[in-house]
């Protein structure tokens, strides 16, 4: 879907310091060499199946379906993957690629900590050094994941600059990569940043929609009417959308974190409130002020607390192929509690944004229609924060 310069319509590109240009060119060449290499794909497939536990289940949420009284609801269970989220799909691909490129060290940014944990896991498995940059604010919100990363042998660097959240972690990882390129691969966690990252990460996450398609055809003999996923940078959502883009009958719905609401400044809903800009290596939509200063965004979910969105999403929005809807903290927390009680599945607070929107539209649809919600991660990491949101004095 992207052209040679990594453009998705007008979005994408490579807006990075000259010092990194040869690194991204080298990465693109390596990716082009290995992406169709049978041996590379065999190794990756084995890791995904035997180590990460793929394919992930497509589960018919019967109680939820009956309770909401509309469309039939399936859950794509990325939360059941090893390390507890979809992040492992991309990380195993990139770590294997980095290894083939002769790199011995992985660096990564992380918001909620899911991508950091996945990267630390892959580094442990593949004998690589690992350094994870995490906003100091997030190291407090997600203390358990910080411990996990350290347990796995990674170094976690708390980032104090800016708003001390995900965007600052990305900036710091980019700065680190600029200073040490030879032995280091920047294992970017979302479909963002400079080309070729949005394409590489999308390709490694596209396994989600590839499996959904096979599984739903097997179970229902037809394609779903809508697929729904949460969007921060947009990796689990692009993975959920990708193999349905050509199937015009399938609605693609991305759920953005509205925080306290898109009519407030405390929001992270980029497509709903942002404007076109250039940041973190790409042209896309960003939350920013009138002078282009990047806005300090807010969401209860550390993983969606990012002021930009991947360039392919910006393009899918421009051409009207995908819809991007805002979901507030309160709606997401209600969905978090609802799915826990109704199906016995505790979703990540990120994924709960997608569940919340499905709860709104399912009752308006007919019982012969089908919705697939991607549960991008599990919610154990969020329990303490949600308890505090509900006024309980619970700390990890």
């Amino acid at each position, binding site marked *: 879907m992207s052209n040679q310069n990594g453009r998705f319509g007008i979005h994408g590109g490579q807006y*990075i310091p000259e010092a990194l240009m040869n690194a991204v060119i080298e990465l693109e060449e390596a990716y082009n060499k290995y992406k169709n290499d049978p041996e590379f794909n065999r190794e990756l497939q084995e890791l995904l199946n035997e180590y990460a536990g793929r394919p992930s289940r497509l589960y018919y949420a019967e109680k939820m379906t009956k309770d909401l009284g509309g469309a039939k609801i399936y859950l794509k269970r990325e939360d059941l993957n090893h390390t507890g989220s979809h992040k492992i799909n991309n990380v195993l691909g990139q770590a294997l690629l980095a290894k083939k490129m002769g790199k011995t060290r992985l660096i990564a940014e992380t918001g909620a900590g899911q991508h950091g944990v996945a990267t630390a896991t892959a580094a442990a498995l593949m004998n690589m050094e690992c350094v994870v940059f995490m906003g100091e604010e997030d190291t407090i919100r997600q203390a358990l994941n910080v411990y996990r990363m350290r347990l796995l042998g990674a170094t976690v660097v708390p980032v104090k600059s800016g708003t001390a959240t995900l965007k600052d972690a990305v900036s710091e990882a*980019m700065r680190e990569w600029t200073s040490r390129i030879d032995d280091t691969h920047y294992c970017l966690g979302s479909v963002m940043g400079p080309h070729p990252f949005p394409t590489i990460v999308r390709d490694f996450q596209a396994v989600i929609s590839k499996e959904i398609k096979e599984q739903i055809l097997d179970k229902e003999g037809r394609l779903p009417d809508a697929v729904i996923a949460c969007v921060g940078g947009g990796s689990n959502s692009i993975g959920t959308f990708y193999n349905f883009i050509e199937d015009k009958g399938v609605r693609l719905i991305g759920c953005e974190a509205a925080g306290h609401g898109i009519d407030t400044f405390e929001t992270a809903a980029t497509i709903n409130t942002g404007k076109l*800009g250039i940041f973190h290596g790409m042209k896309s939509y960003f939350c920013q002020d009138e002078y282009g200063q990047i806005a300090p965004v807010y969401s209860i979910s550390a993983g969606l607390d990012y002021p930009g969105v991947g360039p392919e999403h910006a393009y899918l929005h421009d051409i009207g192929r995908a819809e991007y809807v805002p979901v507030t903290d309160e709606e997401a927390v209600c969905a978090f509690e609802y799915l826990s009680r109704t199906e016995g599945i505790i979703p990540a607070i990120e994924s709960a944004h997608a569940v919340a929107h499905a709860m709104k539209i399912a009752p308006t649809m007919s019982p012969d229609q089908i919705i697939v919600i991607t549960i991008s991660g599990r919610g154990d990491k969020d329990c303490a924060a949600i308890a505090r949101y509900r006024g309980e004095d619970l700390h990890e």
Partner: protein
Amino acid sequence: MNRIADSFNNNKAFIAFITCGDPDLETTGAAVREAVKNGADLIELGIPFSDPTAEGPVIQGANLRALTAGITTDKVFDFVRDLRKDVTVPLVFMTYANVVFSYGTERFVKTCREVGIDGIILPDVPFEEKEDFAPTCRKYDVAFISLIAPTSGERIAMIAREAEGFIYVVSSLGVTGTRSEIKTDLKSIVDVIRGVTDIPCAIGFGISTPEQAAKMSALSDGAIVGSAIIKYLEKYGTEAPKYIGEYVKSMKDAM
């Protein structure tokens, strides 16, 4: 356009970087005038950006102080208009792509021309993406200044051939900030540049001492110093200009 070329004409150029509005524009104005009085040949004016990904902690701090104090692109343009009443050395902006893009590239560059800005440096716009900005800069006779890094390798000649104003040679890998030692083989990089263009090249990143300034300007046409100057602003605030003047003199004397 010529003010930039002229500044390299007589001898080695000393280029001073100062973030606009740190801690306020009055101090920036005083610091620029002190630097010029003490021998600075060209001034790089930083327009603050919320997320300066090419900067080390010192200049990040300057950006934050300036933005917290309420600096905007329009205030910077007004400041330059005023500065130009008596400052004649070339002035170039150093900022990030989104600051220019969000203002409207055409409107931004046209205003640069009007207020007397001679060039623009955007560290997050490499050769591959310069078509977003360079043609507009040419239209208004504002130099779009290119950077060359220690990792540029076979890209050096390609970048140098299309360079305008001067070439900013990045001395070391990583972000801006002072370094005790610069290890890159800069002579080889400068040799390649000199083989394809007559445009002057100056070395920046990591330079803080008179010895480094002497060494770097001997290898090229000039030395660029940022973090070492900003440290005075960090330490002395509105009292910094006189220290900056003394510092610039010590650097310029060594070159």
